[in-house]
């Protein structure tokens, strides 16, 4: 038998939080530092470089723009899947989370196609500092998105069971997963203009 951890689902009155909510925000703070460091490195390398290419000359802006739209759309379906749970509409939740998953996978497919195009033109990370930072940052972002897809897939597969067992806890989990998803989306929204448009 397991012991009960206080405030795992219910809100602690004096802090106004349940554990997972604080946990996910702390995790995101750490992630902000991770990507913040990479953005700072980008700035430092670019300032120190003798010449820096225009992103649009090397990267495929239409594909990047399509991906931006896809990811923003996925954020909308993600938050709507959470609100459906709040309205006790599990069926709608499943539909919306599946759409989120689909959009996430499409993003990755487009990203892979972009990488392939680059490789076909002989553009590798070792080519220049611009390409190096492009591949590193978008690659790390794609890994984060993959992580989000895995988490959502778990919630899709075991959602019914979790929902029946403890709907409040499951809603909290979707909220946390959603916060993470929005964060990954936000990173892309900064990456896209930084790498493609400047």
């Amino acid at each position: 038998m397991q012991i009960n951890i206080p405030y795992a689902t219910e809100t602690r009155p004096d802090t106004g939080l349940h554990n997972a909510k604080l946990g996910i925000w702390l995790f995101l703070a750490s992630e902000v530092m991770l990507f913040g460091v990479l953005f700072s490195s980008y700035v430092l390398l670019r300032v120190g470089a003798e010449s820096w290419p225009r992103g649009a000359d090397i990267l495929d802006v239409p594909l990047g723009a399509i991906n931006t739209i896809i990811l923003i759309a996925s954020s909308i379906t993600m938050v709507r899947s959470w609100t459906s749970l709040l309205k006790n509409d599990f069926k709608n939740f499943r539909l919306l989370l599946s759409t989120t998953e689909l959009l996430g996978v499409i993003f990755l497919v487009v990203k892979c196609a972009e990488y392939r195009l680059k490789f076909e033109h002989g553009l590798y990370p070792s080519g220049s500092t611009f390409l190096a930072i492009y591949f590193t940052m978008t690659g790390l972002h794609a890994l984060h998105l993959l992580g989000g897809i895995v988490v959502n897939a778990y919630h899709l597969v075991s959602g019914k069971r979790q929902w029946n067992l403890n709907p409040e806890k499951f809603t909290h989990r979707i909220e946390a997963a959603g916060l993470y998803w929005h964060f990954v989306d936000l990173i892309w929204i900064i990456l896209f203009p930084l790498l493609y448009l400047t």
Partner: protein
Amino acid sequence: MENHETQISKPKSRLFFLSTDHKTIGILYGFTGLLFLLLGFSIMMLMRWQLAFPGQPIPFIGSWFGQDRAPGGIMLPEFYNQLGAMHGTIMVFLGVVPIVVGAFGNYLVPLQIGAPDMAFPKLNLMSYWLYVLGGLCALSSFFMPGGAAQSGWTSYPPLADIATAGQTFWLIAIIFLALSSMLNSINIITTIVQLRAKGLTFMRLPFFVWAQFVTGFLLLLAFPALEAASVLQLMDRLAGTSFFLPSGLVVSGQPLSVSGGGSPLLWQHLFWFLAHPEVYVLILPAMGIVAEILANNTRKPLWGYRSMVYATIFLGFMSFLVWAHHMFLTGMGTIISGFFQATTMIISIPSVVILLALLISLWGGSIRFTTPMLFALAFLPMFGIGGLTGLPLGLTISDIPLHDTYYVIGHFHYIVALGTVFAIFGGIYYWFPKLTGRKMNDALGRIHFAGSLIFMNGVFFPMFILGLAGVSRRLWDGGAQYQFAQHVLHWHEFMSISAWLLAVFQIPFIVNLFWSIRKGKKVRENYWDATTLEWAASSPPPHGNFFPLPEVYRSPYEYSVPGYTEDFLPQNRFMEEGSGLKEKG
């Protein structure tokens, strides 16, 4: 809210090393960390042979290392560099931090705040195993072609970028350790914020918990910098990028065929953005341990508890703004150096506040010279020496001759070895009765204390002499190749013999530790007559710790309350309004 008054329950997994109980994980962290501490120490003893007797075959065990590391028992420079890099890495990332945060933090924080467990028990277990994975990764690099990482624990590029395969393993290990400490710090912060017992406000938290709280934020926000930097260096090494490789680099007479345009200085900024807060990760929990031991053994409240807490928070904040004082000699410019010199001087203020508060706490106390108290008392002047010798390093002008000399090594070992490691020892002696229901042997403990104090000083004090004479710190022969160093080189022999004798005096501790687990004298549950909540649980505490969860009525160190019959008033003891205390007082 769910019912907390569940009966004593068993953890889900019967296997010790898969338990999600915070106490089991804390013990696992502790033993693994102590093993790494011993390994790092053994590596250092090998290096000390080479420094005292350069070019002579290592006695007895020289043949163990093989022809490509030590032909004929004589250590090769490359092998010495590997040992040096791995000594630092093991001690900092795999030894001390896992002990003070992973072991002491995991075991004590939930107990001291009256919680049944950590907020996320499964993540806690995961963080331990990521740490083990990182440790194995770092160790396995010794068996790679070309050996382990050999660019120092700081792994400065461009050398680290072009080093042998061991460096790749070092980077992967660091990424695992970053993930591990991220999970652990999220857990500790959430636990402290969310699971405090009823009535336990922030200003009633034991100082140890405050230290862990600030440490958690340092690990959470600083480690991602090294994680990102490690990813960039991995890309440099595996994908051929040039994040840290400048244009026009020539290696062994051959121009390096990379795109160039990178910045070696970028690595240093990213590395020290972690590694300076990391220094405070090493020392803050140690101060917490010492504060607990001091309050208990002086039988009076800590002096200036509030100012200590505020100083700790300020220290944590400032520790993010001082990193480039490690880089005064890189040519980053006098204006930037001036800024970091100023912040460095500012950060010494909260450290002094904490140390002085601890020192003044002794005033007027009825001091019990127990074994843990001896270690805590030794901590104060030793940390003082470590701190004061740091000031000349924080000033740009005096840093120029001292930078990268033995003086630096002496300075930070006074903080980490004579400070943190002493606090660790004291903490082990102090909380051992809580872990086992038995106490450690005092005679052996005192031998261990005296030997450690004398010989640690014997190892590290001469380093100041060598450093002031200008002997550089990473030389394979300890400086024998330089004319100017000849008149101080005899100290190397003195330091090495001290180091080996120091090892001898760790034997009583190891014997004591294992002997006392089974055979130590049985003691009552609140053996030290302490006030904090961990002593309200039974020894060892069962899974779930408290039945029912305790309530807190007062601040953490209510010792020698005037008019109260006993000289300690536990945080969870209920007193009716106006009863007992005030009437007699």
